[in-house]
């Protein structure tokens, strides 16, 4: 079964990244805001990479006769 807590984690991370982006942009540090956004995307990718890997392997086993 899919773990629901992962969804909540991703949602909370997204909200926090939006807040950090707003704070940095209001402080006039637009370039750092872009870097923070990228870091957030990477963090979320790291969270879901296991699931993606599982999906690919299950698709692969599906086509193995």
């Amino acid at each position, binding site marked *: 079964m899919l773990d629901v807590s992962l969804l909540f984690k991703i949602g909370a*991370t997204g909200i926090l990244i939006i807040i950090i982006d707003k704070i940095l942009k209001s*402080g006039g540090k637009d370039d750092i805001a872009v870097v923070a956004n990228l870091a957030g995307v990477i963090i979320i990718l790291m969270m879901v990479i296991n699931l993606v890997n599982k999906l690919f392997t299950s698709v692969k086993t599906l086509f193995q006769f």
Partner: protein
Amino acid sequence: MYGGRNMIKIIGCVVILVASTMAGFIYSERLKYRVFQLKEIQRAVYQLQNEITYVHALLPDAFKSIAEKSKEPIKELFNKTSELLTNNEYENVYAAMNSAIDLTKEKLYVNSDDINVILDLSKTLGESDIQGQNSMFSLTIANLKKQITISEEYMNKNIKMYRSLGFSFGAMLVIALL
């Protein structure tokens, strides 16, 4: 439901959150200290000008008397300069001031631009007549005023940002570890 392990987890999260928020606050305090120290230096430079133009004091004595009237860490900076000048270890005021700044560096929150303004003043101290030094003093004070305006603007802009950034990074860490 809330067993021992869960309790420890929650306490750890709170500790991380508090620590990162504190780090943000402490970092934003540095900006305040910079403005405070620049104002203290400005006042000290005015007093040094008085010591030189009206009292005609010798430079080590002038530095000593303005050190007595200043607060830490500016007090220590001028005390060190006075000591180094009295001991005759250095060729000129610039060299003495430079090593005094090196000695008190970890207590000074001013950046290299601010330090350059003071070092520029020390390059001409004791090497010209009162009129020449007075013109150098007015240049230094104008530069210091500019630095104070810049640092105040920077403080107002960034003090809130650093505080909320500290909290946000703490919350990020907690979510990543949860």
